[in-house]
């Protein structure tokens, strides 16, 4: 009996020793990574699942931008190695994959996330492990993490132009807000109401329906009955198609009721059929039709990679901007270590001339400036600019709470409310 126990202990220890060594071996090897001439980054966009239709294009654009940098000689003389993971549109899997990228692949930053729920699932990982998430999409604000570089617009950069444009330029007086039932549309509605208080227009109602809801008859009827002459739509995902179709089917016209969307891009317009979107408006900083040399180069490179019918949209433009902004930040900091990059952004905010124009980091809240624009959907599915600011405006992620340029709430050390 004693011999058996000794044998058992010997075997277990041997196994544990080997396993430990095998587990540590990559770490031992990776200690050499830093000086091996490679920078490792994570690419965390859903390639399968509900939101993959948009996120796949973002993943491709991220790889395209990384290849551009590598082809031009790399970053700090090193090649960037992307680790692509597929979180399958599930926030839980986003969390797991982020942890895997940070702990096992030892990446210096993660480019990823599209929905706010996925970003909120990755946030604890990068904060706890002192890593960096570069989040390239416009979102609802109200966040101030010191481990995330936010490469997309926040509500004040979408609504500060959109709502006054509707009231003043289009002469609308009664605003009806519609959205999907989660934090982004509700945040947008709150900010819309605050902006409207300073005008002589009024909001008449705000209605929300769950993700994927397809029966819009009653809400469109409510829009008609309320006498609203402007609709601000933050409907996300598939339901926007059913919404537009119902709107048109009930005989409402985009000429009589100004339809302003904050989330619809070229992709959703194609998915719903142009005849149901033509004449509606969108407030976003980027459209494929923008006439800048950077945009021409970007669209050509994108279509060379994904086909001549591929459409660029604000999501992929944000990814491209974010990768190049991060590249500049790493060059400024002379290091790709996450915390040093973040400190470098705060001291010496990088900027890049992207497809939409100049995009620059705000050193205080780690968000970027954006040039607000309003576009009108054309009969060929493209969106043409009808209004644009002459230059970019700064981000105020806590605008709904009263944050203004002279009253910052998202500061260098965190949110102060």
């Amino acid at each position: 009996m004693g011999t058996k126990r000794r044998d058992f202990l010997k075997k277990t220890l041997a196994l544990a020793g080997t396993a430990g060594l095998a587990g540590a071996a990559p770490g031992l090897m990776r200690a050499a990574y830093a000086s091996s001439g490679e920078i490792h980054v994570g690419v965390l966009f859903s390639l399968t699942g509900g939101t993959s239709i948009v996120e796949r294009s973002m993943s491709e654009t991220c790889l395209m931008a990384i290849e551009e940098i590598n082809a031009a000689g790399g970053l700090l003389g090193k090649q960037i190695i992307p680790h692509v993971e597929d979180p399958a549109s599930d926030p839980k899997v986003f969390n797991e994959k982020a942890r895997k990228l940070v702990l096992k692949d030892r990446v210096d930053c993660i480019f990823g996330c599209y929905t706010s729920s996925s970003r909120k699932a990755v946030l604890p990982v990068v904060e706890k492990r002192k890593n960096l998430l570069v989040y390239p999409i416009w979102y609802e604000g109200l966040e101030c993490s010191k481990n995330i570089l936010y490469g997309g617009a926040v509500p004040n950069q979408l609504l500060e132009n959109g709502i006054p444009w509707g009231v003043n330029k289009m002469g609308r007086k009664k605003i009806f807000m519609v959205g999907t039932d989660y934090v982004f549309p509700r945040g947008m509605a709150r900010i819309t109401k605050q902006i409207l208080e300073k005008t002589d227009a009024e909001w008449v109602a705000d209605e929300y329906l769950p993700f994927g809801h397809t029966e819009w008859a009653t809400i469109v009827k409510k829009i008609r009955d309320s006498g609203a002459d402007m609709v601000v739509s933050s409907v996300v995902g598939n339901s926007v198609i059913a919404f537009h179709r119902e709107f048109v089917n009930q005989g409402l016209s985009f000429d009589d009721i100004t339809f302003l969307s904050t989330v619809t891009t070229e992709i959703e317009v194609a998915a719903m059929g142009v005849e149901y979107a033509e004449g509606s408006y969108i407030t976003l900083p980027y459209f494929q039709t923008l006439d800048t040399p950077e945009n021409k180069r970007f669209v050509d490179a994108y279509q060379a990679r994904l086909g001549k019918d591929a459409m660029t949209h604000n999501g992929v433009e944000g990814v491209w901007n974010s990768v190049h902004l991060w590249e500049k930040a790493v060059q400024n900091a002379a290091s790709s270590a996450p915390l040093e990059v973040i400190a470098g952004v705060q001291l010496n905010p990088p900027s890049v001339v992207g497809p939409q124009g100049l995009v620059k980091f705000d050193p205080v809240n780690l968000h970027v400036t954006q040039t607000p624009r309003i576009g009108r959907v054309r009969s060929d599915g493209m969106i043409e600019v009808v209004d644009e600011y002459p230059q970019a405006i700064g981000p105020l992620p806590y605008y709904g709470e009263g944050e203004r340029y002279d009253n910052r709430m998202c500061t260098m050390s965190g949110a102060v409310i």
Partner: protein
Amino acid sequence: MFEIFTIGISIGSIFVLVALGLSIIYGTMNVINMAHGEMVMLGAYTAVLSTIHLGINLFWCIPIAFIVTGIVGYVTERLLIRRLYGRLLDTLLATWGLALLLQQAIRVEFGLSFFGIHVPGLGAGMQNVPVPELLRRSFEMGGANISVYRLFVFFVTLVLVAITWYLLKRTSFGTQLRAVTKNRQMAACLGIDDKRVNALAFAYGSGLAGIAGVLVAGFKIVSPDMGTPYVIDAFLVVVAGGVGSIVGTVATAGIFGEITAIVATVANDVYGRVAILITVILILLFRPNGLFSVKAR
């Protein structure tokens, strides 16, 4: 007020479209078909592909979708369901598996996307079906704004219900089907080919779902996972209306439609859904066999 009524009728007609096929399949053959929603989805994709590759308009997609999903239903019955008669839980599992297979088949474009081949109209994304200009209008009647498309859906539903009723009650096929439902062995003894009757009934039910898919694609979403909510709605209607009763299905669908419209106007659509579910629970509490149950031996 009248408009809420018309909206309710329209929502109800969509319920009827989807539930009618299931009423035949579940009602007459006692097969729990979890793939019924995917038949709706296949009908929608048939419309998408026909519009893109054949260039026809929505009206002609209806018979094409009926034939395509009818064939898929027939093949399903021959290969899968036939071996599982009487085994309720097994049919549930098997048809659920079939539903997943069909969803993924569309998503990976029947495997072609593995080879880098992309078929326009398939894939993981959202598709759309162009609706003829004729149907994109609306008009006023009795103070209500009525969308021509919804009226069209309502008329197609009426026609389908009439055809189904006629099929079941006035043709020899219908009589055979009802006989097989009552007592399969006895019907077989009397010379009825029960296997063929079942296969055709399953095909017909799936075909009806396909037509529902075409109509629904005109004004709702088309994506690989669009079918699942429809199978849930279909079962709610069929079970609450009374298994095996066409009248029950139609009446319950109408009731559900009106409840949704009224509650959604007063509150919002989420509460409308809650109201329907509470109604189903109440119906089943007080009449466990459904509202219009057919007397079984």
